[in-house]
């Protein structure tokens, strides 16, 4: 990975974090997401136990931590895909804990999955069109009234084509999503999430299994999302990638936020090095790996 290329895209020297302090639970000047006391345990295992976390609007925030740290579970909880044991969180000032997955998505917080969920027996274009919101033809009665939704469908198709162009999937639009490679499926899932026009997008390991040639363009997509004003929260393992594009990094270990800060803060944080790198070594020994 050529990290200098990544650096240039992030090198616009504005500190989007204003004067946030590099400490766990630090408060942000303009948080889009605020979570408090979010807990989830599986049997005796506490998977997530986050006391306080704020995500700054319009930034790229990386959520890192060893495998099993609770990153995916935390995503599932925030987006209504898992039931919490306790906790509250607000998105754009609205309380959204207790809402179901589709309601969270409609509020503008959209997520992707670590295990890619391409709708395999549907075309790439149909996958995209599913992301469009407020479709009149998606109501059962509306479905029969083609004139009611024809123009909406055309506009959505146009937008889908633009996104497919951007993600270099345009030639595949009529192919079944199941015929795509793993990396292309990741791209499709991200493009599909963008079809919902979210204000915040949460990507669970978007780079896993993506061909290195595509990683660069994926990173550019992520930075341009931020530059368009969207907030990105993403889980990733590749340290070069994380350091290169993140405005802020949150470190999770055993379900807790153990550190937060700018890339420069995290790089030098001994606790992180111990918890994260140490755990990675252990992981390497036990032969565990991500599911790419």
């Amino acid at each position, binding site marked *: 990975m050529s990290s200098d290329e990544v650096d240039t895209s992030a090198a616009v020297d504005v500190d989007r974090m204003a004067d946030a302090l590099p400490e766990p639970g630090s408060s942000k000047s303009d948080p889009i997401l605020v979570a408090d006391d979010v807990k989830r345990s599986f049997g005796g295992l506490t998977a997530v136990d986050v006391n306080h976390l704020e995500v700054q609007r319009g930034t790229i925030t990386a959520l890192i931590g060893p495998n099993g740290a609770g990153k995916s579970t935390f995503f599932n909880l925030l987006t209504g895909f898992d039931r919490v044991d306790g906790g509250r969180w607000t998105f754009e000032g609205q309380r959204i804990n207790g809402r179901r997955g*589709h309601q969270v998505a409609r509020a503008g917080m959209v997520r992707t*999955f670590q295990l890619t969920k391409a709708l395999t027996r549907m075309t790439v274009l149909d996958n995209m069109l*599913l992301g469009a919101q407020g479709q009149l*033809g998606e109501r059962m009665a*509306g*479905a029969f009234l083609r004139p009611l939704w024809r123009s909406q469908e055309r506009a959505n198709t146009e937008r889908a084509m633009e996104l497919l162009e951007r993600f270099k999937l345009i030639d595949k639009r009529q192919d079944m999503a199941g015929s795509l490679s793993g990396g292309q499926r990741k791209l499709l899932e991200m493009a599909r999430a963008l079809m919902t026009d979210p204000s915040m997008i949460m990507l669970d390991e978007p780079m896993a299994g993506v061909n290195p040639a595509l990683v660069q363009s994926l990173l550019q997509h992520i930075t341009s999302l931020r530059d368009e004003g969207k907030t990105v929260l993403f889980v990733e393992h590749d340290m070069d990638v994380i350091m290169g594009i993140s405005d802020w990094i949150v470190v999770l270990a055993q379900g807790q936020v153990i550190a937060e800060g700018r890339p420069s803060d995290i790089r030098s944080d001994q606790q992180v090095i111990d918890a994260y790198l140490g755990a990675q070594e252990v992981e390497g020994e036990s032969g565990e790996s991500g599911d790419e």
Partner: protein
Amino acid sequence: MDIFMILAEAARSAVGPIAAIYALAAVGLNLHFGYTGLLNFGQVGFMLVGAYGVGISVAVFDLPVAVGFLVGLGCAVVLALLLGIPTLRLRADYLAITTIAAAEVLRLVYRAGFAEPLTKGVYGLQNLSSGFREVNPFDAGGRYGVGAITFTGNQMWLMTVTWGLVALFLLITWLLIHSPWGRVIKGIREDEDAVRSLGKNVFAYKMQALVLGGLIGALAGAMLAVHQGAIQPDQFKPQVTFFLWVILLLGGAGRVFGPVLGSMAFWFLMSFTDGFLKGLGREGLLPFLSGPDYGAIQLAFAGLMLVLLIVFRPQGLIGDRKEMLINVK
């Protein structure tokens, strides 16, 4: 043994009232399983409430048959809600278990002693056809058809209405499937979490599909009641659902015309086997079998058909093999 007569009789079954009724019920099942991915193993339960809606209204309360149809449809909505509300938020297999059990429970309740004032228990209900036949535009005593394949006027009337309903619901299916609504339910079939993450209320869509498919099943049951003129609970055994699944898979699940082709092919083959076995029996070629065994062999044949289908043509008669073989991860 006159093979021509056996073939003619089989062809007659392929377009006859029973094939039409099963095709209709399978259109509903196709909406459930073929498009939405709902594992409904109790479609016969919807047929039962449809048939008894007609039966109880007509035979017990002396109401017009049209009212009976409405009662049956109302019961189907209630049944779909009762089945769906507790299970559709859970994993797919919960619906499967619930539907298979609910259909059996319904049959046992309808045949139970305490239900006798309404259902007449195991004796069933009779004289259900007259209202339907009053509006028969065909000559009830006449014979219609070509060559060896003929039907009575009453059968013609029933076939016209039932195949008409099949055509209507095929059209409805086609329109729904080629709309954004259809895209959502196909998405749910593939991966409901992905669809949920895109802001769709998956539960509501599954419920809509369950209700609509159940309504179609109930209509099929109501047509069965007016076709037979008499119903009793034990004809609504799980075997009916099994036949419907064979029909759906034979024709091609997730294909608009799958249920029709499946039902025609299925009843053609069933009638052919039956005629063939009886023919052999008459010739004295099956000395080790007695008449009642033929039914069992016929059933075994249906099972064999399903096995062969899954081995050689898993996508059904008109399914898309490429689509079928896509790696579903």
